[in-house]
């Protein structure tokens, strides 16, 4: 979740939004897949009846807890959480994620594209970025807490680092994956350097970069949460910390479930955006080898 180079390497080379969407739709309607979820819940249910509720609360309790705590969780106020509900803390975490992803993506994409086009820039930035991509970004968290104190800034900075590195690597790879034939063709047609960047480099790399953005988004939630766990007065991480202190496994699982659900929703929105912004690419690799 925090190591970036591996994530970039493991990501599919081409995003196939339409196929993914069709696949997702089929998956959602497939009775066997749904049955899988039921089986999962039943196993959970069965385990929870064997184990004590403190260790593993049954799924319906977790869902019910999520439902009530979302708008009002008085238990949190005993432990000094400013807003005693999941909704406000989720909003705080989501704000940080959005801010960090926006800033990190802007820096990473520009740096990645520039580095792909200028070998000297690449030679200078790459070693740093590759190292940053191999090391879990989490290593920076304690430093940020000392430099910027316990608050929004350290958490946001941590996520910015992560997103920057991941999008740098994605943008660079996307740009170097663009077949040189397109640039050659454009040059023979009389395109200027600027036109090549605007008309070729950017549209050609959009699908892969958006794919990277989705991966960065997915990782950003976890990193933001753990950063809040390490030191924050608000946010889902703080909620988790408080609930852990109270050994409230039901509350912890409800919070995790909420984070997971939000991550799924955000990813779905991002997937939809990918589909819209890169419609030229839909199913490209599947139709033409």
């Amino acid at each position, binding site marked *: 979740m925090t190591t970036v180079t591996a994530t970039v390497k493991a990501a599919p080379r081409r995003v196939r939004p339409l196929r993914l969407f069709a696949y997702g739709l089929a998956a959602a309607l497939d009775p066997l897949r749904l049955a899988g979820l039921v089986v999962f819940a039943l196993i959970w249910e069965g385990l929870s009846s064997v184990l004590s509720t403190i260790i593993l609360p049954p799924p319906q309790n977790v869902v019910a807890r999520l439902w009530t705590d979302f708008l009002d969780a008085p238990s949190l106020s005993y432990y000094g959480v400013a807003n005693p509900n999941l909704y406000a803390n989720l909003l705080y975490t989501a704000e940080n994620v959005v801010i960090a992803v926006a800033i990190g993506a802007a820096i990473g994409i520009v740096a990645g594209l520039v580095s792909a086009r200028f070998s000297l820039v690449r030679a200078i930035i790459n070693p740093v970025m590759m190292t940053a991509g191999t090391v879990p970004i989490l290593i920076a968290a304690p430093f940020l807490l000392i430099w910027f104190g316990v608050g929004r800034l350290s958490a946001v900075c941590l996520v910015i680092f992560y997103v920057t590195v991941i999008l740098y690597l994605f943008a660079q790879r996307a740009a170097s994956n663009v077949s040189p034939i397109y640039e*050659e*063709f454009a*040059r023979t*047609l009389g*395109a200027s350097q600027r036109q090549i960047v605007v008309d*070729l480099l950017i549209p050609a790399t959009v699908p892969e970069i958006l794919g990277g953005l989705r991966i960065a988004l997915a990782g950003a939630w976890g990193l933001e949460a753990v950063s809040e766990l390490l030191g924050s007065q608000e946010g889902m991480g703080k909620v988790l910390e408080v609930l852990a202190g109270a050994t409230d496994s039901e509350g912890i699982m409800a919070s995790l479930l909420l984070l997971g659900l939000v991550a799924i929703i955000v990813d779905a929105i991002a997937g939809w955006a990918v589909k819209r912004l890169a419609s*030229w690419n839909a199913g490209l690799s599947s139709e033409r080898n």
Partner: protein
Amino acid sequence: MSTNVAPRMIELVHVERSFRRADGTDVKAVNDVSFVIPEGEFVCLVGPSGCGKSTLLQMLAGLLEPSDGDIVVGNKPVTGPGPDRGVVFQKDSVFPWMRVIDNVEYGLKCRGVPAAERREIAWTYLKHVGLSHVERAWPRELSGGMLKRVAIATVFANGGRVLMLDEPFGALDYVTRHQLQDVLLNLWNADGAGTRRTVIFVTHDVDEALSLADRIMVFRSGNKVDDIAVKVSRPRTTDSLLLPEMVEIKRKLLHHLGLDHAAGLDAVADEAVA
């Protein structure tokens, strides 16, 4: 065509190009090649793989610098790629992120031609290549042959006086290849005698060269080994390829390609004579 009358369009003087291999040795891809091509001529470059014909084309396009020698196109030395020389590549170069019509007008757009005007030009050529019905399609929705048509329309629309095609139809099936040869020849002819564009067409298909070219240059290991005029009148049909002079040229070409003993060739020649 009328070689003596038309002004010279392309001139190569002692052009060389060498590459360094991974092991450090130099390889001459193009070795001391000189020729002149008059305006409006349709020239085919023929030779086995690795004979340097594609390298030569890349240098003409300005995508590759010669190690030595001069290349002049339209009285200007070639210093880089430019819209005066259109290129159709072997691989698909149609931009997948632009719709078909946007692809065809892209070169015009780069040169600042007003939108309405360039759309009309693009439309004309799209119609010429028989693709007006897929104007708004994405390239991914087209077949390989259709993509080649788009590429041809694009370079023609861009108005370059020299067109270079690097084994453009090599990957296509037999029928499609022949259809595209017709498309190309029709577009070339449509300009009318005297204003035809100069075409350099790289191929390894002997029959393709015979049915298209005014002149065939043969390359082998970086050298120009032969330069044959094809005087047979156009339009050329299946029967044209059986004319004795055609068969004679084919025999020569096959010899250069090391295919002397191609079975059945003599029989074909005899038939044609009879």
